[in-house]
């Protein structure tokens, strides 16, 4: 645990904004010192620090969509979500020249480069990691195809951009006109050594995984990434027993984000309750704990002995943890 106030954020400037649809905005982020940002591989994401007000400091995760071979800048695409915590709406108010803090890239969705054929299934804004991933595969001379679903033609600007860049290997489907993608026909009788990568809404990921399983695909060839929307809850006090500090966790901010905003760095990777990095021991709580993760066992959740500060929270009152 360190108490560096920068907490790992890299200062960047928004150098270009492209509203590709009414809801989707592509931002170019450039380093302030004019040098280079950290290198990354296709499938990586960063977190963007968002300061909504004096006490609401969020960190939202976005996949990088720019070239991994050019780190003079990054590009992310942000879809405006009505409701929710307001992070995406904030990003839609930014202008060129505004400054942000971002974390170093983390890749929990990498290409399996030894595969024979790489099949991507993406829905909506889930298309963004495909840009650097397909570029890597193209450079490696590997076989790939992408199946992208968009609801309406007017939502398909990024999909068409991908198709323009990578040609006939990209199949764009407008589901409002052509109906839903039949995942069985995409995954049946594919060459041994294929890999499938799924990025999109939770329901799509679940359906493609079930289809792959039924068609005999082994789990080690099925990859997916899901960005869970942070749930809001009640505000509560978070007491760090070892440090003797008590912090207020506002209704819209996760405990991890509060720790970071106060210069307290704890390990994390996925920020979605899946990777286990931020697991924290609970000493005492005078309200129920809302366990929103998929990492802890049901027994641990029932015992309330640990919780995942990236996504879980207390339902008011005071939570005392071993930090």
């Amino acid at each position, binding site marked *: 645990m360190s108490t560096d106030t920068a907490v790992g954020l890299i200062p960047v400037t928004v150098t270009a904004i492209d509203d590709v649809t009414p809801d989707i905005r592509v931002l170019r982020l450039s380093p302030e010192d004019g040098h280079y940002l950290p290198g990354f591989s296709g499938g990586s994401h960063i977190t963007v620090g968002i300061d909504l007000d004096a006490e609401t400091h969020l960190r939202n995760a976005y996949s990088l969509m720019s070239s991994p071979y050019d780190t003079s800048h990054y590009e992310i695409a942000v879809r405006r979500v009505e409701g929710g915590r307001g992070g995406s709406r904030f990003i839609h108010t930014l202008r060129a020249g505004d400054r942000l803090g971002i974390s170093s890239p983390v890749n929990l969705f990498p290409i399996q480069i030894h595969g024979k054929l790489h099949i991507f299934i993406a829905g909506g804004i889930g298309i963004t990691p495909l840009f650097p991933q397909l570029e890597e595969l193209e450079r490696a001379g590997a076989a790939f195809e992408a199946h992208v679903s968009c609801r309406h033609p007017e939502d398909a600007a990024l999909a068409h951009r991908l198709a323009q860049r990578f040609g006939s290997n990209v199949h764009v489907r407008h589901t409002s006109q052509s109906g839903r993608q039949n995942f069985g026909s995409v995954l049946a009788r594919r060459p*041994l*050594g294929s890999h499938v990568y799924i990025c999109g809404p939770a329901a799509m990921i679940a359906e493609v995984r079930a289809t792959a399983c039924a*068609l*005999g695909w082994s789990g080690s060839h099925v990859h997916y990434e899901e960005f869970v929307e942070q749930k809001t809850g009640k505000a509560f006090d978070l007491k760090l027993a070892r440090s003797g500090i008590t912090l207020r966790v506002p209704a819209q901010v996760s405990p991890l984000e509060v720790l970071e905003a106060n210069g307290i760095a704890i390990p994390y990777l996925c920020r979605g309750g899946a990777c286990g990095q931020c697991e924290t021991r609970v000493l005492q709580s005078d309200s129920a704990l809302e366990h929103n993760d998929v990492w802890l066992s049901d027994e641990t959740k029932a015992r309330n002995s640990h919780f995942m500060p990236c996504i879980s929270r207390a339902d008011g009152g005071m939570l005392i943890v071993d930090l």
Partner: protein
Amino acid sequence: MLITGIKSRPVYDRLAPFSDALLHLVVGQGSGGSAMARLLADIPAGAEVEVMYSTESFTGQNHAEGLATASPGHVCRFASNADLEQALQVRLARAFMGTRLYLAGSESFIGLAMKVARQFDLNADEVLREHCGSLVRRVWCVHCDAYNENITQRVFSCAGCGKPLVVRDHYSRLMGAFMGVQGDAEVPGELPDASDLDT
């Protein structure tokens, strides 16, 4: 199952049917035939099964007759492990996702077959390996790239380049073999004892 203190040496499995396979590809050699026959009896009736068997054996084990009885379909027989390796390559190249591979035989044979399986990116959830028969080592020469089969002595002459090789207690998964390096490179003629390998 081989028991040694060599951490890099593969830990082998006991063949048992994968429940989610569209095709069971049962492949083995020599004394591996017994494990193959046992597996075939465990695979549910009606499942898609193909069997490939090489009768090449260091210890003279031949289970071809027993396999023909145990197999629901035709058993493809090969006179050598090299022929079987080639046929496996061709078969996997036209196989689909949903294929599960089972390997049984000597460590040399499993190393040979795994090199093919790796080209198709087969992982532990798609391939099982059962070691059967002799504990002889397969040794890859780091100098000339030759594979030396059935090695039982710590020091031997490489079949490829003739250099006196010392067998290192390290199994390379990439090469599917132990590594052999010239034993007297520093002082020509000065070699360790040609003791039996701890296999």
